[in-house]
């Protein structure tokens, strides 16, 4: 599973989510995480059409986008989503 994680240095929701992602990513192995910064990777972000809310996780399986997780989510919500994707 490959995850593109889009955050920004100024975004408080991104900071809030850091610790929650850590918990989830430790639970699910085999995750390849690629980080992008909203301000520094402007061109790529434009192509991804992420909308108006940060942070964004774009989940790929076999190079096909299977999910987008937008904004603040609880650990429980994240685990539920990833469990669904792992099946």
């Amino acid at each position: 599973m490959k995850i593109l994680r889009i955050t920004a240095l100024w975004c408080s929701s991104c900071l809030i989510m850091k610790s929650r992602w850590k918990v989830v990513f430790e639970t699910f192995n085999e995750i390849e995480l690629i980080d992008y910064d909203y301000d520094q990777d402007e061109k790529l972000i434009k192509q991804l059409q992420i909308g108006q809310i940060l942070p964004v996780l774009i989940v790929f399986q076999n190079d096909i986008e299977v999910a987008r997780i937008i904004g603040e989510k609880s650990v429980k919500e994240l685990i539920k989503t990833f469990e669904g994707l792992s099946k």
Partner: protein
Amino acid sequence: MKKLKLLLGIMILGLIINPFLSKNIYAENIVHIYFFYDEVCAHCAEENLYLIGLEDRYSNIEVHRYEITQVDENNLLFEDVKTVFNELDALTPYTVIGGVSLRGFNPTTENDIVRLITRYSSLDYVDVVNKVLLGEEVLDTDFDSLELSEVDLPFIGPVSIDSLSIFLAGILMGFVDGFNPCAMWVLLFLITMLINTKDRKKMWILGFTFLFASALFYFLIMVAWLNLALQITTIVWIRIVIGSIALGFGGFNIYQFIKSTKNPDIGCEVTDRTKKQKLMDKVKKIVTEQKLFIALIGIIFLAVSVNVVELACSAGLPLVYIDILAYNQLSMPVYILYILLYIFFFLLDDLIIFSIAMISFKVTGISNKYSKFSHIIGGIIMIIIGFLLIFFPQIVMFNF
């Protein structure tokens, strides 16, 4: 941007026209002040001078002077009025405004007179002395009171409801205003950049200066507005206009909240990329500046520009809070203390984030769901205050 310009315009206008307004106050209600005095009494002479000053300041007051030792008629009226107020032992100076009698003259009397002028300028009242003059019956309900209701707080003791209400309003409104997310991102970005420098001293100095300059700017704007508000509180239509503005801002805040509920995703909104980028470049330049003095000047300018945006985003909360203060006719040091209280709670979330970063070298965020709720809480507060200002101003004046 238009909203911002309008707000700044009002503030600047407040500072500029303040000196010219002080002699031009008028309201719809004429407030009659009955002053019983004795020509040889020193306190009477003091009060007379004070009343002359008030006549100059308020164009809607009429002072009726009764010298009781030289004119028998005046003395008879004095006795009648004292009887009505059940204060037969009262001496001069003796002042009656509406349904309230004031014995003697001291700084407290000065405050009481101003409070009563403010109260009766915009509210209907019964002129008890006029009733006595006309030979009409004075009813129990005609009397008014300056006495304050008190509540007994644990550890603190008795506190007047007036001051407690303003105190709680300051805490609540400042706190809600502080959760406005418009400028929080700059602080987070600044702290992140400062942490990257790994220079704790620089982090302290620049971070503290940013917060202090923000507080100072907000303070100056609020004092400027207070200067204007103090001059216009007695004008009835101004009260209604301010009430309507509060209703408008409140409605807008609630609309923002409803709009945000349509989007289930709570997070940071990405708007105005170019402006954001410019501010971020400024922050980077300040943080990497080698000369501390130049960095300090830069950070002060940054704080001011950020708080201009913050002020426009606050949807009138500080403006309405200042109006509440102005309607309560307090002394200047007390005004300042209440403004500082508001600013402290306004900056509390920033102070917490900064302190955690200082101690742990880690940036902490505050969930955007709180800013979402600040819209609805702020909106409800504004609507309640707007409604009270228009229909029940005595409650905003905390005259229970």
